[in-house]
């Protein structure tokens, strides 16, 4: 058997091609939107606006990253919006109310998300509560707890000006110099770098690690995975924990950006994040998905929102257009994939 692998190179290449093509769809949508908006408004591509789009993507992008994992397992997490808020509030509690160092507050905030995600995971895997229900419950609980802890008022970070720098400073800036001159010293805020760093971590987790492998396996056939001796409960819990952790990071970013923890915000953000994941080509039935797609999906969402605003499209029409584009992109994706 000399030709034991008859089509090895070709095959993986053609696989790659189809994968890339699929990603290209969301990417194509993004490019089309960008071109269209640039043509329709000269303000769209202004440096400040581009940065604005990036910042607007940061939180939603981070949430979407986390929920990508959950969706690949075939689950759903409706709690990420309010868990994000809960994490922001906890960060506020640590830093502003209990006067802890910023680092402790940030860790505390992220870990709050981790804990909420872990709870979701336990409910879903050991107690077999369906993901939709468990996370819907968590959505309410996290929302209520945020309000209770914050005593219904925003928590401000005025005593710790450094906190705002986490998202809005530009200490990691590498291109600093070149932009400084042209763009009135307006640099690239950390939030953007954090988003990309989170995406790289997410991508690494998903494609290189055992966690990622089991994420796909669970989504593809959880029972077969279990019968293969994988401790599915533990890994499923891990996946929701990862998702919660990303939501925690999102909360810190949100708090830092607003320089305050806003306890009432958050509900509805899960839908934006899920929409980003879906636009990015991840199937809600589980088993497949990519981080790159999710990031592109998140950008599609924020470019759309920004562009329609730049064009001063009436808000009620913005809502209609967003809904329609969501369906159209997913539909085209499906048609492409079927071919």
């Amino acid at each position, binding site marked *: *058997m000399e*030709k*034991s*692998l*008859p*089509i*090895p190179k070709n*095959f*993986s290449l053609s*696989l790659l091609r189809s994968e890339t093509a699929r990603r290209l769809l969301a990417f194509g949508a993004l490019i089309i939107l960008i071109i269209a908006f640039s043509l329709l408004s000269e303000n769209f591509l202004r440096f400040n606006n581009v940065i604005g789009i990036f910042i607007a993507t940061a939180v939603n992008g981070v949430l979407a990253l986390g929920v990508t994992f959950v969706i690949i397992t075939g689950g759903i997490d409706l709690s990420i919006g309010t868990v994000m808020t809960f994490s922001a509030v906890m960060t506020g509690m640590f830093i502003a109310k209990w006067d802890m160092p910023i680092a402790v507050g940030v860790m505390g905030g992220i870990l709050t998300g981790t804990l909420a995600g872990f709870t979701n995971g336990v409910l879903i895997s050991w107690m077999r509560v369906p993901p939709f229900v468990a996370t819907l419950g968590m959505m309410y609980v996290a929302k209520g707890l945020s309000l209770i802890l914050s005593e219904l008022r925003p928590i401000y970070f005025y005593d710790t000006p450094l906190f705002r720098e986490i998202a809005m400073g530009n200490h990691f800036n590498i291109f600093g110099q070149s932009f400084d001159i042209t763009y009135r010293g307006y640099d690239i805020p950390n939030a953007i770098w954090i988003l990309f760093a989170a995406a790289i971590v997410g991508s690494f987790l998903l494609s*290189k*690690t*055992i*966690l*990622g*492998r089991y994420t*796909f*396996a669970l*989504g*593809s*056939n959880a*029972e*077969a*995975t*279990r*019968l*293969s*001796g*994988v*401790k599915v409960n533990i890994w499923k819990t891990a996946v929701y924990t990862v998702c919660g952790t990303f939501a925690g990071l999102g909360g810190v970013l949100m708090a830092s950006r607003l320089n305050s923890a806003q306890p009432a915000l958050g509900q509805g953000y899960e839908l934006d994040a899920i929409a980003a994941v879906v636009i990015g080509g991840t199937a809600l039935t589980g*088993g*497949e998905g990519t981080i790159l797609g999710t990031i592109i999906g998140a950008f599609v969402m924020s470019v759309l929102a920004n562009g329609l605003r730049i064009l001063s499209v009436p808000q009620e029409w913005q809502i209609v257009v967003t809904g329609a584009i969501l369906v159209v992109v997913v539909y085209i994706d499906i048609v492409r994939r079927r071919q």
Partner: protein
Amino acid sequence: MSDTLVLMEGIEKSFPGVHALSQARFELLSGEVHALVGENGAGKSTLMKILAGIYSKDAGHITFKNRPDVHISSPRAAQNLGISMIHQELNLMPHLTVAQNIFIGREPRRRWNFMVDDKKTNSMALDYLQMLHLELDPRIKVSELTVAKQQMVEIAKALSFNSDVLIMDEPTAALTDTEIDELFGIIRSLRQKGVGIVYISHRLEELKKIADRITVMRDGNYVNTVSAATAPIDQIISMMVGRTIYEAAPELPEANTQPIVLEVKNLNRGRLIKDVNFHLKQGEIVGFAGLMGAGRTEVARAIFGADPVDSGEIYVEGKRVHIHHPCDAVRHGIGYLSEDRKRYGLTLSMDVETNVVLASFRNFLGALGIVKRDKTRIVAQNAVEMLSIRTPSVQQKARNLSGGNQQKIVIAKWLTADTKILIFDEPTRGIDVGAKSEIYKLLNELARQGKGIIMISSELPEILRMSHRVIVMCEGRISGELNIADATQEKIMYFATQRANGGSARADVAAAD
């Protein structure tokens, strides 16, 4: 050499409404192939699932390698003990690659024990695939494989555990003879190495070839263990069923002079179906033979409207029909019994009754679309009786029935729909001898009633026994057609290996025989 590996005694297991095992017993020595046989629902799979840590037993003892009363709490625990199982139903992750499937749960790891080493996974997988003489790229996704190839992947996966105990629950159900031979070669070499192999199969003729001992189960009870070499098949069968069964000598079907009911012309679908032409007469059984992936299922699905075709014409009773959807096929009197009943045949969470009438609800409708429940119940009860489907009642969920009984439900569905053309895709896959002969009887009876039947089967004896005519496929083409009088296993194999690129060595061997 022959140490006792496993001893299961007094095993009890109940499911809601079903006492699946009572005082079941099983013994496995190292270096033996121990066949486990019994009718559908006898409890074979259940017993082995207990050994593999999938179900927990209600009572009883398991002695493993002289350790009394081992507790096997999970599949992982079983694996750690050195017990692995190939399941009756495919248990693969379709979105993962072949290699990823084989090593799921045991991925070679890199740094921090947290990163997977895909290169190593692929090369190790390739080793096992080559051991099975399987030409498969380990990087291909399992969803892109045929059922047969998926089954081979399952086997490769089970082998990769290097277990002391290997349970095979109907591993050959989806395989054709060549693959079965490969598999038997592997089983023999494992036996040599002292591995104990549990072999569950309904193909009793295989047992003589491969098994050392045979344990027979009936209704969840242990019946007897006999030596495969000495026990006659008849005796095994009578132990299985506790009665003598209908086993008429294969009646040589007479040539059919009835009118044509189905004619397929120039059917094409990509590279899966290439220019398929054939016809089917009233009261005729046409056997479709071929190796795995020959395209028989594709043809059946295409005729049935389950998949779109590129071109082709279909005539039912001389009239051109357009079938774009299974409902068109049903309307024109065509029924299709798929090869994968769980995925394509049954609504598992629904009751037997609904499954039986699913294809013919329109016959049971009153005003306002009300379903006449009393009628459907009677029809379902009749079907259950006629096919002797073992179920506590027609209200039992299909999920809770054994594989063979599930298959009978699917057959009942098409009988209830009363179609004049029936396509049976592997109708006896995973069905015990008793039920099998009942189904053969049924097929003959249906043919006598004037139905045209296409029977796709990978079991050549079955093809030879049942068909009036045999059509052989290879790589999406019809490579040969034989009248039953001229048909032999060798000739069928010859056509089945008529690959477009000049045939194959194996075909020459087959032809030379």
